């Protein structure tokens, strides 16, 4: 169960980062932000976007079968 809590937390971090990213975009939309600060925001935003993106690409397509013992093995199923 504790392990599953970690999964939920990892997801919270994504959501959290995405919200911070969207917040930064919102602040960048403000015309009164100076150029230097705009660059800072841009940089922070790009870094967050990079993190979000790598989180989304964390796993690759794969189909496996969960065995009784709790281990997995590759599963080959044609869907076309």
């Amino acid at each position: 169960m504790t392990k599953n809590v970690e999964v939920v937390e990892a997801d919270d971090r994504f959501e959290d980062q995405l919200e911070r990213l969207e917040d930064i975009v919102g602040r960048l939309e403000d015309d009164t932000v100076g150029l230097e600060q705009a660059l800072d925001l841009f940089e922070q935003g790009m870094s967050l976007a990079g993190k979000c993106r790598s989180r989304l690409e964390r796993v690759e397509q794969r189909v496996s079968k969960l065995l009784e013992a709790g281990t997995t093995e590759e599963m080959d199923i044609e869907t076309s």
Partner: protein
Amino acid sequence: MRDQVWTVGALIDEVNVLLDSGFSGLTVEGEVTGVSRSARGHLYFSLKEGEAQLDCVAWASAAKRFRFDLEDGLAVLATGSLTVYRARGRFQLVVTRIEPQGLGALQLAFEQMKRRLEAEGIFAVERKRPLPSVPQRVGIVTSASGAALRDMLKVLRRHANIEIVVAPATVQGRGSAEEVAAALARLGASNLVDVVIVGRGGGSLEDLWTFNEESVARAIAVCPVPVIAGIGHEVDFTIADFTADIRAATPTQAAEIIVTQLEESEGRVEDARARLGWELRRHLQGARARLIAAGGSAGLARVPHRVEVARLRLAVADRLPELLEELVRSAGHRLLRAEAALRRLPGLIAAGGNSRLIGSRTEQLVTLIRGHVDQARTAVVSRERALQHLSPRRVLDRGYSITTLEGGTQPLKDAGRLRGGEALVTTLSDGTVRSLVVKRRDGAGPSGRRQSQGPTKQGSLFDDGGSYDEKCGSR
């Protein structure tokens, strides 16, 4: 027989023989009342009709096969044999089968289960967990050989970043509910998945019965990750549907819910990225416009500010190759995905020629993008050069000078404040000159109050744009 003296036991046994020959396998219609269950699982109740009442018993072996719970007031058809209970001498119907009147047994059982679990709060909205933002690792509980699995995989495989773990289970017939429950528990405990789909293709109420079993409902309720139910068709509602965190109309739709969620999260990230770039460009353009508006005649005093702006612009330009390379990488990913998708389309791509076509398109694209990266690099280098031209040192090299009051730090802009005899220090490219003010002449500048050193000529020096050297030829 009349003269015979019976023992009680013998009489009852004899009556039972008679009853057995004439009153076995009969069906009685009546309303259930006074239901009680013994510790051993035997079921005692009565059937009544008006004033008439008949004791009934269902032995545990028969009672456990009843699909619904006996409840007082239920109208039923009970099938069994009449006997006299030896220990009490009471007449009773030993029930082996029972059917509700009106509703089918299954329908009734469904309604009863639903009512019971609902009262327990298992379907409560507050218990429903939302789908995670990134449901990438998907567990599936279904039959390994069913069409439902194929349907779900077909949808999930449209997305490149989904990992699927199938926990196979029989989804129909004896023992299937236990298998489904066990598969759910195994997936939940595996820590391999973010979300679980419980799926099954369409079928009759009887076929889908597994998903109305309490053990399945309980397994769904305690699953540590959210569960999506995709069982049967749109019109089929099972207990599992009510218990699950999310109910999908079909297995295919369950898979689509996941793909849609992932695409939405990706969309939000990409959208934010695009807006970052757009907003930054807007800020740069704004700064540029302000610069031009402030421009020209402000002269050397503006230099530090303008160098600063140019430095910022260079910082952005600096990142361009990096950004473009990332673009190349992500375009590469997309291309691979698109290629994989194309290959999967049956019959559409007849191997040979077309895959060569894809290969050559890929190369074209990569060449094109590389070209962009090179261009960006060239742009950075030329920005660097422009920046060097803006350095005050270089300006001095080209013959301009900066004059301050002796002991002062601010460049002198107004002749108006000068007095005859004041000492000035003029900085040239290779040293400084100290001089004294002899006479002041006012009103030579364009605004009538600026220093008369020729601002109209000098003004063009810092106009925005490329070639500073050309514009500076007028000294």
